[in-house]
């Protein structure tokens, strides 16, 4: 049985005028770390809120741990952990009080499930008498994760846990998720950061309420159509403009210190032709080579289809 299952889920707002989620279907297997990857406004939060029974779908069916999100909402609420995008703790309770509160609400105690949160809670335990409102961003995030875990949920929903967090804290957070996964908890996590996709078992790329692709990170990369090239020269901005004017350019985007390029039409001698064109345009230190696409390259390609 799938831990999470969505069939043709649809959600609109403002009396049907704004479409937030359209016809979304996917399944998350027991113990899987599944990533919902997409920019703001893609529909990620709406999906999370429907799965955690806080929002009713307009159409379609969804279940969590085999329970229907509409009929069995009470059962689901006691079985899932949910960490919303915005900080959801009680600012004027201490670290320890927050954790005890969440444990009590779910009819358990900190002691009963301490083993599960131990690794994470230890890092904030020295501050257990501090009010949650006075914690740093990284510590709040850890406490929120502990509170979402303290009743030993079967499925954990994490809505953009790393948004606005610097790259060091992001790496730490994903390390925590990896360790939780070893305890066989199903995790559905959303993020706008494409580089985090590779840390998931499977990912769904989502844009404007529609799923663009569902696959493993490696499978997503493999589905990239055509060959991808990396180009650079001494003047990168002029290079970008010249490449966009080139007759055989399919797409050309900046990727860090390089440009990523696809040809409009794959043909023999395409690389030599391009080199020639760039030399004509007086570019120097030209480097051109094949490169493996990343998740972001794939996302861009799916968006353009």
């Amino acid at each position, binding site marked *: 049985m799938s831990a999470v299952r969505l069939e043709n889920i649809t959600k609109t707002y403002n009396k049907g005028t704004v479409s937030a989620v359209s016809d979304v279907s996917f399944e998350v297997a027991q113990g899987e770390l599944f990533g919902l990857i997409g920019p*703001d406004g893609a529909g990620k939060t709406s999906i999370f809120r429907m799965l955690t029974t806080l929002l009713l779908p307009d159409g379609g069916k969804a279940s969590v741990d085999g329970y229907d999100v509409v009929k069995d909402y009470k059962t689901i609420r006691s079985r899932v952990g949910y960490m919303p995008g915005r900080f959801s703790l009680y600012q004027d309770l201490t670290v320890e009080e927050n954790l005890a509160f969440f444990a009590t609400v779910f009819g358990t105690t900190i002691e009963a499930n301490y083993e599960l949160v131990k690794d994470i809670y230890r890092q904030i335990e020295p501050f257990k008498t501090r009010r949650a409102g006075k914690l740093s*961003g*990284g510590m709040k995030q850890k406490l929120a994760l502990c509170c979402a875990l303290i009743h030993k949920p079967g499925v954990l929903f994490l809505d953009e846990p790393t948004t606005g*967090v610097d790259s060091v804290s992001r790496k730490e957070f994903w390390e925590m998720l990896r360790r939780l996964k070893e305890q066989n908890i199903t995790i559905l996590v959303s993020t706008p950061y*494409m580089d985090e996709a590779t840390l998931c078992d499977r990912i769904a790329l989502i844009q404007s309420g529609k799923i663009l692709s569902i696959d493993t990170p490696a499978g997503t990369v493999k589905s990239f159509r055509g060959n991808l090239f990396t180009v650079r020269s001494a003047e990168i901005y002029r290079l*970008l403009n010249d490449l966009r004017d080139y007759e055989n350019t399919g797409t050309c985007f900046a990727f860090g210190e390089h440009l990523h390029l696809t040809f409009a039409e794959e043909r023999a001698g395409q690389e030599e032709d391009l080199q020639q064109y760039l030399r004509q345009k007086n570019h120097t230190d030209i480097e051109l080579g094949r490169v493996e696409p990343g998740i972001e390259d794939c*996302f861009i390609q799916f968006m353009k289809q």
Partner: protein
Amino acid sequence: MSEPVIKTEKLTKRFGDFIAADALSFDVMPGEIFGFLGANGAGKTTAMRMLCGLSKPTSGEATVAGYDVYRETDLIKKNIGYMSQKFSLYEDLTVVENIRFYAGIYGLTDKAIREKSEALLDQLGMTHEAKKLVSELPLGWKQKLSFSVAVIHQPKVVFLDEPTGGVDPVTRRQFWDLIYDASDKGMTVFVTTHYMDEAEYCNRVSIMVDGRIDALDSPQNLKKQFSVHSMDEVFYQLARGAKRTAD
């Protein structure tokens, strides 16, 4: 050699015992794209607020667009542009109302506002959308518009505070086209970001750790200095050693 647009010398801000920004010294040249990086709580916002004339330094010196950060804060505010992802446009005003509003705030004359509005709409290819509410525009257009109104008074320098957070990968890159274009025309761009690939697009990058600037150079030189292949690794090596965390 032209004069720096931003010049700081041991610029410091203390809150009681806490040194939020610790003796920052750097110059930013005309037309430069300067990436201002740092972990959460490293002191970026404090430094940026001083440079925008919103917060008085405790000690040290700084000029922005030629004006002093202690005595000429009003002149600084008139001569810089500022844009953040969180707040930029009024969603319930139309496109042209937003343009007029910002132009008015920056003290353009009625005649200049009329001319500028038309020129800008034309340049953005948004003449047909002029009377649409901003809330109805696609994200990419909103961003273009909000950048354009932030520089409607043609400032020497524009401050961009995480302008691309949460934005799709195509829109994010279109936004950088605007940055390159502005820099090409001589405008200085001072930008913060959490996307390390964007750090590579900057001419030079500074990285703040615990209130100090611990590294400042071109992305290429920084990668060489730390013997790594990406700015992400440079950042990670530096920020990992941070002692403090804060919001």
